[in-house]
C-alpha cells in the first residue's frame, strides 16, 4: 500500500485551504485493505467542502467498512491550484483517508448529484491516471461506477463508466462487493473485465451500458462506421439474453433498518452543511411534476420517531456539534415531527442545547409555527418555495400552494419575528405566460405588504432559476425554454421587481441551464460533448467562475449535434427516450398521463393520505408507504384537502405536431 502523503505534503502549504486534503475527520475508520477485500474509493466530484457532508457517501462509507470483505476510503475533486501542482509533479489523485493512489482501488464510485459535475468525473479519472474511456481500461484498472440522482440518466456518461447504480445504495453495494471480490480472487486476468461487468449486470439496479446497443435512425451504435449515428433513437436493447431489458432502481423498504450514519464524519475544516444531519424520511409523494428528486425516490418511508431521537442524541454526543438538521424533502410532513422537536427544543435555562434546523419547509402557517419553535437567536430569514407565480401555473406543476397558504405562512413568519423571507421560483415552466412570470413579483410584493405591518425592515428576496426538464418526471417530454427566452423572463421579473418596494431578485445564469439541459436529457452522443468540454478546461461547471457556455455550444457544433434537438424540442409520446430502458419504478403511462393532466391544469393530491393512483412504484416493487400517521399533517398545504377546481383556461398549447418524415 503506497501513500502519496510524502509527495503531497510539500505542496499543501502552497495551496488554498489545505485542510481539505488531510483527512483525519472524526468518525473515520482505519481501512483494512487486503487481497480478500474489495477496496472502494468513494468519490464526490466537487470540492471537499461540498462533498464531505453528503449523507449518501457517508452512509456507504460506513456500511462498506463494516463488512469484512470491503474497505472504503473517500476522495473529492482537488481545487484547481492543487490539481495544477499535482499534474506538474505527476502525483495522481489520492484518497483523503490514507492518501492512497486512486488507481490502486478496485472500485472508483462516484456520487453524482447534478449533471454539471460530469466533466469533473472525467477529470478525476484522468487525474487518477487511467483511461477515461471504459473500453480502453485494462483488468488492473478500477471499475468506475456512478450513482446518485444524476445517474438516473447515465447515457451521456456511458462511454466513461463501467456501470451505473439506480436508486439507493445500502443493499446493492454489498452485492456489488461480492461480485468484485470473486473477480479479484480469480486474479483479474486479461479479458476478465467483460466477465465481471456481465456479472454486475445481473444485480438488480445495476446498469452496464456496454451491454446494450442503441439503434438510431441511421443505424446501430455498434456498427463499424466512421460517421457518428444520426437521427432519433429507434431502439435500445440488451446484447445478451441474461442482461435485463429494463433496469429498475433499488429501494430500501424500511429506513428503520438502516440507522446510518452511526458515526457521522465530522470534518476538521469548515464545510457547507457544518452540522449533524439526521434523515427523518426518504421519498416524497407531493407529486411536484418538475421535481426529479421527488419522482425517483418514491415511496415515502419514515424513520421511526424513537430512532430519530436516538440518532440525534447519539450523533450530537459523538460529534460535538450543537446543531442538528432533520433532513427530508419536506420535514414538516414527518408524522413524528412535533414529538421529536418537543424533545429537542432548547431549554432556555440550559446552556449548550442544540439548535434544530428544518430545511425544505412546506409553505403554510403550521410549518412556520414549527420553525418558530425551533429557531434560536436572530430570526433573519425563512425560505419558501412556491415555484410559480400563479395558482394556475402551480396546478400545472402540481405545487399545490394557494395564495392563502403562502400569505398565511409569511404572516406567521413576520408575526414570529422574522424580517426577511426568501422565495424560490422556477421560470420557463410548461404553459407559462408573462402573466405567470410577473405573478412572481406580485406574490413577493404581497408578502412585503404583509411584512410591513410588522416591521419596516420587511423584505423579500426572490430567487429565480430556469427550469430544466429531467428524466423520469412527467415533464421529461417538455421542450426547455431557450437561453434567450429564460433571459427575457428573468428580465421581466427584474423589471417588475424594480418597481416593487422591498422585493429583491436573484437569478441563475440561463446559459448554465442550457448545459444542464444538454446533459440531463442527453443520449450516448453527448458523451463526446462532455469530453470536449472537459478537454477544453471546462471543470467545476457548477462554479460560475469556471462556467462558459461557449465551450458547450462549440462542443455541440464540433460533434454535429443541435442544442435545440436536445434541449428546446418537445418530445412526442412515442419517442424512444434515451433512458427508456431504465426505470425509477414509475409507469411510463403514469408519467405520460400526469404530463397530460399538467397540460389540462389538473392537480393531483398527495397519495399518502388519498387513494393510490398507481404510479407504479409501490406495486412494482412490493413496497408500501411507511407513514406513522394515517391523517395528513396539521395545516398541510400542497394537495391535502384543497379545492383543486379553481383554474381557468389553458393559455398555451404545447402539444407536438407529428412532422411527416
Amino acid at each position, binding site marked *: 500500500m503506497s501513500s502519496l502523503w510524502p509527495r503531497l505534503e510539500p505542496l499543501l502549504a502552497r495551496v488554498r485551504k*489545505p485542510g481539505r486534503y488531510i483527512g483525519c475527520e472524526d468518525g473515520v475508520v482505519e481501512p483494512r485493505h487486503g487481497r480478500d477485500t474489495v477496496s472502494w474509493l468513494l468519490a464526490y466530484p466537487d470540492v471537499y467542502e461540498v462533498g464531505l457532508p453528503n449523507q449518501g457517501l457517508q452512509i456507504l462509507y460506513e456500511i462498506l467498512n463494516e463488512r469484512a470483505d470491503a474497505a472504503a476510503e473517500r476522495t473529492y475533486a482537488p481545487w484547481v491550484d492543487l490539481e495544477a501542482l499535482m499534474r506538474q509533479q505527476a502525483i495522481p489523485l489520492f484518497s483523503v483517508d490514507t492518501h492512497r493512489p486512486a488507481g490502486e482501488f478496485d472500485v472508483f464510485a462516484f456520487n453524482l448529484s447534478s449533471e454539471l459535475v460530469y466533466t469533473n468525473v472525467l477529470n478525476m479519472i484522468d487525474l487518477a491516471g487511467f483511461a477515461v474511456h471504459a473500453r480502453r481500461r485494462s483488468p488492473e484498472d478500477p471499475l468506475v461506477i456512478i450513482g446518485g440522482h444524476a445517474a438516473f440518466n447515465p447515457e451521456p456518461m456511458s462511454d466513461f463508466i463501467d456501470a451505473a447504480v439506480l436508486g439507493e445504495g445500502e443493499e446493492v453495494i454489498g452485492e456489488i462487493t461480492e461480485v468484485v471480490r470473486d473477480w479479484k480472487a480469480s486474479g483479474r486476468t486479461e479479458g476478465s473485465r467483460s466477465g465481471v461487468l456481465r456479472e454486475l449486470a445481473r444485480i438488480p439496479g445495476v446498469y452496464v451500458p456496454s451491454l446494450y446497443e442503441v439503434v438510431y435512425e441511421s443505424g446501430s451504435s455498434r456498427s463499424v462506421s466512421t460517421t457518428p449515428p444520426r437521427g432519433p433513437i429507434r431502439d435500445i436493447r440488451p446484447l445478451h439474453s441474461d442482461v435485463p431489458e429494463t433496469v429498475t432502481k433499488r429501494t430500501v423498504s424500511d429506513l428503520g433498518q438502516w440507522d446510518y450514519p452511526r458515526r457521522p464524519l465530522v470534518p476538521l475544516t469548515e464545510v457547507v452543511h457544518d452540522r449533524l444531519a439526521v434523515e427523518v424520511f426518504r421519498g416524497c409523494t407531493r407529486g411536484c411534476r418538475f421535481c426529479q428528486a421527488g419522482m425517483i425516490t418514491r415511496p415515502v418511508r419514515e424513520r421511526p420517531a424513537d430512532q430519530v431521537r436516538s440518532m440525534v442524541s447519539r450523533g450530537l454526543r459523538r460529534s*460535538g456539534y450543537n446543531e442538528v438538521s432533520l433532513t427530508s424533502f419536506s420535514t414538516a410532513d414527518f408524522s413524528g415531527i412535533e414529538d421529536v422537536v418537543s424533545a429537542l427544543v432548547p431549554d432556555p435555562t440550559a446552556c449548550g442545547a442544540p439548535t434544530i434546523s428544518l430545511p425544505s419547509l412546506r409553505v403554510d402557517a403550521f410549518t412556520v409555527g414549527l420553525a418558530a419553535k425551533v429557531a434560536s437567536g436572530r430570526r433573519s430569514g425563512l425560505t419558501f418555495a412556491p415555484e410559480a407565480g400563479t395558482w394556475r401555473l402551480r396546478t400545472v406543476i402540481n405545487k399545490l400552494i394557494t395564495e392563502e397558504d403562502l400569505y398565511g405562512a409569511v404572516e406567521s413568519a413576520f408575526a414570529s419575528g422574522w424580517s426577511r423571507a426568501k422565495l424560490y421560483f422556477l421560470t420557463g415552466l410548461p404553459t407559462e405566460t408573462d402573466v405567470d412570470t410577473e405573478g412572481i413579483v406580485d406574490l413577493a410584493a404581497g408578502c412585503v405588504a404583509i411584512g410591513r405591518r410588522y416591521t419596516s425592515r420587511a423584505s423579500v428576496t426572490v430567487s429565480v432559476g430556469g427550469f430544466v426538464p429531467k428524466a423520469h418526471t412527467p415533464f421529461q417530454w417538455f421542450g426547455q425554454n431557450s437561453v434567450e427566452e429564460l433571459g427575457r423572463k428573468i428580465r421581466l421579473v427584474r423589471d417588475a421587481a424594480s418597481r416593487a418596494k422591498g422585493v429583491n431578485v436573484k437569478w441563475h445564469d440561463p446559459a448554465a441551464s442550457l448545459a444542464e439541459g444538454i446533459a440531463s436529457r442527453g443520449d450516448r452522443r453527448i458523451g463526446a460533448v462532455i469530453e470536449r468540454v472537459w478537454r477544453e478546461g471546462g471543470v467545476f461547471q457548477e462554479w460560475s467562475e469556471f462556467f462558459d457556455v461557449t465551450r458547450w455550444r462549440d462542443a455541440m457544433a464540433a460533434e454535429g449535434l443541435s442544442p435545440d434537438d436536445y434541449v428546446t424540442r418537445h418530445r412526442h409520446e412515442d419517442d424512444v427516450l434515451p433512458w427508456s430502458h431504465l426505470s425509477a419504478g414509475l409507469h411510463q403511462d403514469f408519467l405520460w398521463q400526469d404530463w397530460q393532466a399538467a397540460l389540462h391544469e389538473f392537480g393531483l393530491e398527495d397519495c399518502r393520505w388519498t387513494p393510490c393512483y398507481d404510479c407504479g412504484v409501490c406495486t412494482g416493487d412490493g413496497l408500501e408507504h411507511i407513514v406513522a400517521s394515517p391523517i395528513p399533517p396539521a395545516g398541510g398545504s400542497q394537495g391535502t384537502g384543497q379545492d383543486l377546481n379553481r383554474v381557468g383556461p389553458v393559455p398555451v398549447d404545447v402539444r407536438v405536431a407529428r412532422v411527416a418524415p
Partner: protein
Amino acid sequence: MKFRLAYTKLGKVRFLGHRDVARLWERTLRKAEIPVAMSTGFTPRSRISFGLALPTGAESLIELLDITVDRVQGRAVSEAPDLGKWRERIDEALPSGFAVTYVGEVAAGDVSLQESVTASSWILLIDHPDVERAVDALRASESALLERERKGEMQCDDIRPGILEIGIARAEHLDSVVDVWPGDPLRSGSATAISAVLTTSGRGIRPTELVQALIPGDEPWDHLTRVLRTQQWIEKDGQRIDVLSDSVARPQVCA
C-alpha cells in the same frame, strides 16, 4: 472561573487554519463535557478566547486558549474541578496531532492572551544553499525591508526590529524537535534548521516573512520545509519569560 489550556498542533493537522481550529475547540470542549460558559445575546457562543493565530502550515509545541467556565447555568462546575480528568477527556476528544500539555486556572485580573504574549520562538527548516550566509547577513544588518500588500496597497516595512533573535539552530534548540519530526527531516534532507525569536506585538513578524527576508523574491513555502513554534513569551519587569511560568502558583496540570 477562567482556565488556560496549552496544546500542541503537530503533523497533518498543521494544515488547518485558525478559524477551523477555533471551531474544532468548540466541538471538542462540548464532547469533553467541559461546562464552558455561553455568551449572552442573539447568538450565544462558547466563551473561549484563542491566543495568537498560528499560520496555516506551521506546527506548534505551545498553542494557548482560555476558557470561561460557568458556575450558574445547567451543569454547574464544582469549586475545584478535577483538571486531570478534564485533560484526559479533552485529549480523548481531540484528533491526533493535537494534545493538551497544560491546564491551569487563570487569575481574574490577568490580561488577555492576545495582549500579553509579546514574542514566539520558532524553529524553521529552510532548504536553500545560501541560507546560512543569509542568516549571518541578516543578523549583521540593521534593517530588512519587506514589501507586502495591505488593503490593496503595497507597503514597505522594516521587519528587522521585530526579529529579536536569529541564528543557526543549536543542539539545545533541536532537542524538542526530535520527537516532533520523526523520520528526522533535520538530517535526511539538505535543509538547515534556523532558530528565531519573532515579535508578536505591534508589527508582528510571521515566519514566512523571515524566509522572505532571507531569500528574497521566492515563494517562502518553496524553501520552508517545516516550521515549528516552540515557545511563547511575555514581558515581566523588562524580562522575557515563558508564558506559562507566570502561573505556576495556581492549580494546574502539566504534561
